[in-house]
């Protein structure tokens, strides 16, 4: 018990900071209220550092993933916070300047930071979940605050529309995966992920996995697809990202997505990937992967549709935020390729889970940059969201312009940028898992994505500016965040190896002890070699 609490220090830090922020927020002194952002940032930094220092969490199905994901969450969260800071403050200040008085939902700026911290706490809790109850609560803690953040992010009615759409579809998603969890429990008799895994293994060896448990898993995955904005639960994405303030959209594109992918990894690890366990039971298999066929099929269909729908719809948009929203859908599809591939081996490059984790990290960084650019520009007091706002940005606002160019190219996966090094492992792990069709679809989709990313990169770089330069919001931190993330998109390439090693280590399942896992891994590789030789 004490041990478990020791693993949760990052969450505890964040929670305490949340309390501090809320208390600070009711202070009558403006100077104190302004400290909320600093406290939040400090807490995130501390939490990330503590998480990295704490080391693997033995009870989790992915012991090493816990510190990795918490660290990722903390640092990307810090960048997000730089963009988020001032979103509501500005509105409140303006209200006060104009003497508009009391606006019920905007009275207190501290809540905004508190909600953000709550959401980050939820994300970190997700990473350390080893139980369905825990996972459910963590997922809800991640998303409930975001509903409020979307709604109060601007005073436009669009934000409220976004809020209501997000909330209702979110509740639907939550209900679906909750029902899935309950069926999973019904089918296995436990909510502990390790115990579920053992039970399912026993069932698989006895002939077939329990239908109820399988149905539960499928429902859970469909429900969680809401969090990662994947087909079939992607409908809300564009509207919500467009309606919310760009800064909040930046957060929505990373925090719930990361939580969702963690949840998917945790859930799927209960039925497969145990270094070929399902192989012996004869429940699956194609070439080399070890997911039960229904789950693999579900994820496969999800991945293909998610990529394609996201990319094709992104082509038709004129709003930058909508483009980024649809592209965020597409990126979820890419990452699902890694999930389907699974941990084929202990090395980074053929380990699909490591590829997904690394992609999540780099996507988080690049995505914040792109949204930060949108969040930094104003047009007549509104966000400058139209593609035209980007025209000639490299000349009028060089920092913002080049940030957009670099982030767009990186999101496209262009060589020399982080995005390329994130996408290559997805390809290789897919190939290693024998998912050739999926890899080709991934390639074609990357090419489709070139259409709209090229527009995002070319407009600032090559076009002549129209009229005067777009006004900047009064939050310089956003530009800093943008520049930092663009810097990361280029600079992290030099040290990518370091993060890839971490991701590879993070993606070793812990259901067996380390020696067994690596032993089976080598067996697996040897087996796949033999199979190939037989052909």
């Amino acid at each position: 018990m004490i041990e478990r609490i020791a693993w949760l220090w990052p969450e505890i830090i964040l929670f305490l900071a949340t309390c501090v922020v809320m208390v600070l927020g009711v202070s009558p002194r403006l100077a104190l209220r302004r400290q909320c952002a600093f406290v939040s940032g400090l807490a995130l930094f501390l939490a990330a550092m503590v998480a990295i220092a704490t080391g693997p969490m033995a009870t989790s199905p992915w012991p090493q993933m816990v510190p990795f994901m918490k660290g990722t969450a903390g640092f990307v969260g810090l960048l997000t916070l730089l963009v988020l800071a001032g979103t509501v403050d500005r509105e409140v200040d303006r209200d006060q300047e104009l003497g508009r008085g009391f606006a019920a939902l905007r009275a207190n700026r501290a809540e905004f930071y508190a909600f953000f911290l709550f959401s980050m706490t939820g994300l970190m809790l997700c990473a350390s979940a080893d139980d369905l109850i825990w996972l459910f609560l963590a997922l809800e803690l991640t998303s409930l605050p975001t509903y409020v953040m979307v709604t109060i992010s601007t005073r436009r009615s669009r934000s409220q529309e976004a809020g209501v759409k997000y909330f209702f579809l979110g509740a639907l998603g939550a209900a679906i995966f909750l029902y899935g969890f309950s069926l999973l429990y019904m089918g296995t008799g436990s909510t502990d992920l390790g115990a579920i895994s053992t039970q399912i293994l026993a069932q698989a060896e006895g002939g077939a996995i329990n239908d109820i448990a399988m149905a539960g898993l499928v429902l859970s995955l469909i429900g969680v697809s809401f969090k990662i904005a994947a087909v079939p639960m992607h409908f809300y994405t564009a509207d919500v990202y467009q309606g919310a303030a760009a800064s909040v959209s930046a957060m929505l594109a990373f925090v719930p997505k990361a939580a969702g992918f963690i949840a998917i990894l945790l859930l799927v690890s209960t039925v497969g990937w145990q270094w070929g366990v399902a192989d012996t039971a004869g429940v699956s298999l194609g070439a080399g992967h070890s997911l039960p066929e229904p789950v693999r099929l579900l994820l496969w269909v999800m991945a293909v549709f998610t990529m394609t729908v996201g990319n094709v719809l992104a082509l038709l948009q004129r709003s930058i935020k909508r483009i980024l929203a649809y592209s965020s859908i597409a990126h979820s599809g890419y990452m699902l390729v890694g999930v389907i591939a699974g941990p084929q081996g202990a090395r980074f490059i053929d380990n699909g889970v490591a590829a997904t984790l690394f992609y999540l990290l780099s996507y988080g960084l690049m995505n914040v940059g792109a949204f930060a650019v949108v969040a930094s520009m104003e047009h007549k007091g509104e966000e400058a969201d139209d593609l035209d706002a980007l025209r000639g940005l490299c000349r009028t606002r060089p920092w913002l312009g080049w940030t957009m160019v670099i982030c767009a190219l990186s999101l496209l996966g262009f060589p020399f940028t982080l995005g390329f090094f994130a996408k290559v492992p997805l390809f290789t792990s897919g190939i290693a898992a024998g998912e050739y069709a999926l890899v080709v679809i991934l390639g074609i989709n990357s090419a489709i994505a070139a259409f709209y990313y090229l527009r995002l990169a070319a407009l600032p770089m090559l076009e002549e500016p129209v009229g005067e330069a777009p006004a900047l919001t009064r939050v310089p931190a956003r530009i800093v965040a943008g520049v930092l993330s663009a810097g990361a998109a280029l600079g992290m390439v030099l040290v990518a190896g370091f993060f890839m090693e971490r991701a590879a280590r993070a993606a070793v399942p812990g259901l067996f002890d380390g020696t067994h896992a690596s032993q089976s891994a080598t067996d697996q590789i040897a087996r796949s070699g033999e199979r190939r030789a037989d052909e």
Partner: protein
Amino acid sequence: MTGVIDQIGGMLAQAGYPAPMSVLTLSHYLFVSAAMFTLGMVGFLTRRNLIIMFLCTEMMFQAAGIALIAASRFWLNHTGQSFVIFVLTVAAAEAAMALALVVLLFRKRESLSAEEWAEMKG
């Protein structure tokens, strides 16, 4: 009690009768919860009143609750029951948020229809 019912059931089965409805098995609970879940889903997708839509999601939550408790009894452990307590708490939190949202929306548009909120498209 269950022993008696089982005995009766066994006797009836021997005599060629179908098992009496009084014997509630896990599948009965599963059926009820699945029905509730489906009704909730269908309701959510077809109704346009925000409050009804929210109640539909609540119903789906409670369907999960029933399944959990039944499974808890079936497996003879308490995990499912404690899960339900948490589910109720979360449902309460969601209800609070939903009501706040609905009130806000009603003040803006004087209507509870979801159709009123379709400014963004594409």
